[in-house]
């Protein structure tokens, strides 16, 4: 006997909420308050005196901050409504944001970081009273050293790009210390290494040489041989690259660069498919970095703070940003006395809540669990690869016919040629089914691109649902292309004005920037 419930359709009849919700500043009513703080009693006031006058001049505001004035319940409704207008990581099947490793960030870890023991710590309090958190730093450094095979690790960087920057700064310091700073002016990278690598090298003043794939879709080793010289400071390389292709000759790449006296830095932000399977040091790398917010589950947090970690060989350890956490067998302490250190790359010791989350995640899984993460992520990715390649019009350029590690940069070029529909339009239509999809980032060399990275977090059913959505939208592109071209139809907003988002003169991600750029206010 079946239940009297109508079966659900294969694809969801999703509809996003649309509240036409004003910005919180527009909801402000002068004098409206969430909490009315009682005035101090005269006795207290007399005893304390003018607290504001006691503050140093420089920290006293001449005018009160322009905060919205609004009652608690209205604030709550406001943010709940906004949250309903969002396709967040906890709401949708977030495999469409390839290169970002959108995995589950366990809720129990939020409870851990919200305990007063952690939340009430102050970065300037005495070491003796912060032994617990120092031990977490110390332990996590050692775990990441073991995962990468490196000798020392620093957790200071607040993001992946920041960790790449840290590595480039160490490379520069290393060559300078050897008297080769002026001579080694070039950094080599590959076109499908994450663009942060080239960007950080450029920021540091290096000339950047890029290598394209060879005819088989792998980084061209002969181009590397032609690129290296006594000017080479380093190779910065991602592996697997953002195409999901693993460079099987990575050890040779490293050896070629070492052969001319350069260093090799491994962008391990794509480590989710190789945890416990291979190590940066095994391929001879001198430096590497991880994104804790990708591989080790900590939230991406809408652009930060995230967390990066840099690992180095013993030879480069003196250059790590400081201070480093040390253990004398009895106490954990901070070692500030590191004359060759590149110095600080962030305030204090790193993004502590994320360090604790990553620590908790690794401890919960153990070594075998980490390997199971990698194996599951690779299996999920290759299952989805098969499902996507079964959709007419979809392809996976480069290294055709090979399996990928943890993500794939796909292309809708064939579908585009046949229907005129672009990848971007497909992404907007996918949102109508309640799933997120992005066309991903630089370099824009794969035509009509999309990048999917299923991680270990999603079930087979969920991957099937995502693939079914793509297949449906591809079918629509052929049969009713205008439905796709005019999407989204079931979303909070229809289309946004692109120029406003692309033009630094006009874009505004804060209220203050909006008032400044559009109304000339200078608060």
């Amino acid at each position: 006997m079946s239940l009297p419930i109508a079966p659900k359709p294969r694809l969801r009849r999703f509809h996003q909420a649309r509240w036409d919700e004003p910005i919180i500043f527009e909801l402000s009513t002068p004098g409206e308050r969430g909490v009315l703080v009682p005035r101090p009693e005269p006795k207290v006031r007399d005893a304390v005196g003018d607290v504001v006058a006691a503050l140093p001049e420089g920290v006293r505001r001449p005018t009160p901050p322009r905060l919205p004035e609004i009652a608690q319940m209205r604030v709550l409704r406001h943010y709940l409504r906004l949250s309903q207008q969002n396709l967040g990581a906890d709401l949708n099947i977030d495999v469409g944001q390839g290169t970002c490793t959108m995995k589950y960030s366990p809720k129990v870890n939020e409870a851990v970081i919200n305990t007063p023991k952690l939340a009430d710590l102050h970065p300037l309090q005495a070491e003796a009273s912060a032994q617990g958190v120092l031990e977490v730093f110390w332990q996590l450094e050692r775990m990441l050293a073991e995962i990468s095979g490196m000798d020392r690790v620093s957790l200071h960087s607040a993001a992946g790009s920041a960790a790449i920057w840290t590595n480039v700064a160490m490379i520069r310091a290393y060559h300078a210390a050897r008297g080769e700073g002026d001579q080694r002016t070039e950094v080599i990278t590959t076109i499908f290494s994450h663009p942060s690598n080239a960007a950080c090298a450029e920021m540091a003043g290096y000339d950047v040489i890029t290598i394209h794939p060879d005819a088989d879709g792998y980084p061209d080793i002969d181009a590397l041989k032609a690129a290296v010289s006594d000017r080479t400071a380093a190779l910065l390389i991602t592996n697997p690259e953002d195409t999901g292709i693993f460079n099987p000759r990575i050890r040779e790449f490293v050896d070629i660069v070492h052969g001319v006296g350069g260093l090799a830095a491994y962008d391990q932000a794509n480590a989710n498919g190789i945890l416990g399977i291979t190590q940066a040091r095994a391929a001879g790398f001198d430096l590497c970095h991880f994104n804790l917010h990708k591989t080790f589950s900590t939230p991406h947090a809408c652009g930060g703070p995230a967390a990066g970690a840099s690992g180095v060989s013993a030879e480069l350890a003196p250059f790590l940003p400081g201070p480093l956490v040390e253990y004398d067998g009895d106490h954990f302490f901070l070692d500030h006395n590191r004359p060759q250190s590149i110095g600080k790359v962030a305030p204090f010791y790193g993004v502590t809540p994320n360090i604790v989350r990553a620590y908790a995640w690794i401890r919960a899984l153990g070594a075998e669990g980490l390997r199971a993460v990698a194996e599951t992520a690779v299996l999920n990715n290759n299952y989805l690869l098969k499902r996507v390649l079964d959709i007419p019009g979809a392809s996976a350029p480069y290294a055709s016919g090979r399996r990928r590690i943890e993500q794939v940069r796909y292309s809708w070029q064939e579908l585009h040629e046949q229907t005129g529909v672009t990848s971007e339009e497909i992404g907007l239509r996918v949102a109508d089914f309640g799933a997120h999809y992005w066309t991903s980032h630089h370099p824009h060399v794969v035509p009509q691109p999309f990048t999917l990275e299923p991680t270990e977090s999603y079930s087979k059913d969920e991957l099937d649902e995502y693939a079914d959505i793509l297949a449906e939208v591809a079918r629509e592109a052929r049969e009713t292309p205008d439905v796709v071209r005019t999407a989204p139809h079931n979303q909070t907003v229809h289309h946004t004005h692109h120029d406003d988002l692309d033009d630094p003169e006009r874009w505004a991600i804060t209220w203050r920037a909006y008032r400044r750029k559009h109304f000339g206010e200078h608060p």
Partner: protein
Amino acid sequence: MTPAPRTLPASPLAAPGTRRLGLVVNPVAGIGGPAGLKGSDGADVQAQAVARGATPRATARAVAALRTVVRIFPGVEVFTAGGVLGADAAAQAGLPGRVVATGPVHGTAADTVRAARELSAAGVDLLLFAGGDGTARDIHDAVGEGIAVLGIPAGVKMYSACFAVSPVVAGTLAADWLAGRVDSASSADVLDIDEEAIRTGQAEPRLYGTVRIPRVQGRTQARKTAAPASAAAAVRRAAAGASILLRPGTRYLLGPGGTMRALAELIGVPKTPLGFDVVEDGHVLHADADESALLAAAAGGPCQAVVTVIGGQGFILGRGNQQLSARVLRALGKDALMVVATDDKLTELGGRPLLVDSGDPALDHALSGYTRVVTGPGTSTLYPVRAPEHHSIDTDGT
């Protein structure tokens, strides 16, 4: 707000505004392709193709493009030339074509040129043309860098950068143009290849000129990065990379192509579109230099040729810049060439090497290997270079 996914909202594909779409078809374009004739130029070839049973397909492809336009804008008016030059295609696509270019049809390139001129004079601001590289050349002769144009691929060869990737994409772009979704144009190279040479196995693509095509500024382009938002910006970036490498007291032989034009703009000198200009310290010493002028420049002290990738084939030497001969290159000696191009241009080669064909095999061999291509200030790409010995051109331009 739209209740169901299948109902179309009025916006953003609103009714076309004041824009005018034009169409010209080269009725014999592509006729030689299926017959294995590598092109359709010349009355003999066309007759031979018909004898081999070929039928013209340009009209069919123009119809495919127009059907896409009608689907989005039923009843839109298209300005055309008469009969086989466009009105037939419009009628087959169910569009009320307004014939503005009348006049006798001779079955020659002059038809295309005349029709394109008349359509331009009639106020058309986007001209679709169905044909191949030869047709693109005629369109260039007719409108130059005036109104925007877009090729519906229908020829045998389409190496020029002014073609949509398919008829449907051409139609979609045209509809977007009418709707104001695409509203700016950027320049694109028109190439042509001597078909006689391809038939005998020696391809000679050359840069013919530039036209303006609708510029699609996709969301895929500029997200999350400070990377150039458009192809034009990428070209400027590559040119800027070259400009900071220029040394005082050195003569530079600036070759043809849009990238070199951008470099000349940065230096503040005029540029001969299809020729070489000798430039030193911000001054043109010799405009449109021929081989002997280049030899003279090379003999006069430090000197380097600056070239870009010509066309979709990857030639950096020997196509469209033959003035830079083997003799000149030998006179320039070591570091004879600075190659400047966007990473996009390199990626479009799909892993195929850059090509050098100086006419001197020993020199081509010496130039082969890997070359540094300047892609921006402080950035370059190391890319393979070969002589085109076994290189064959894909002539199936469908």
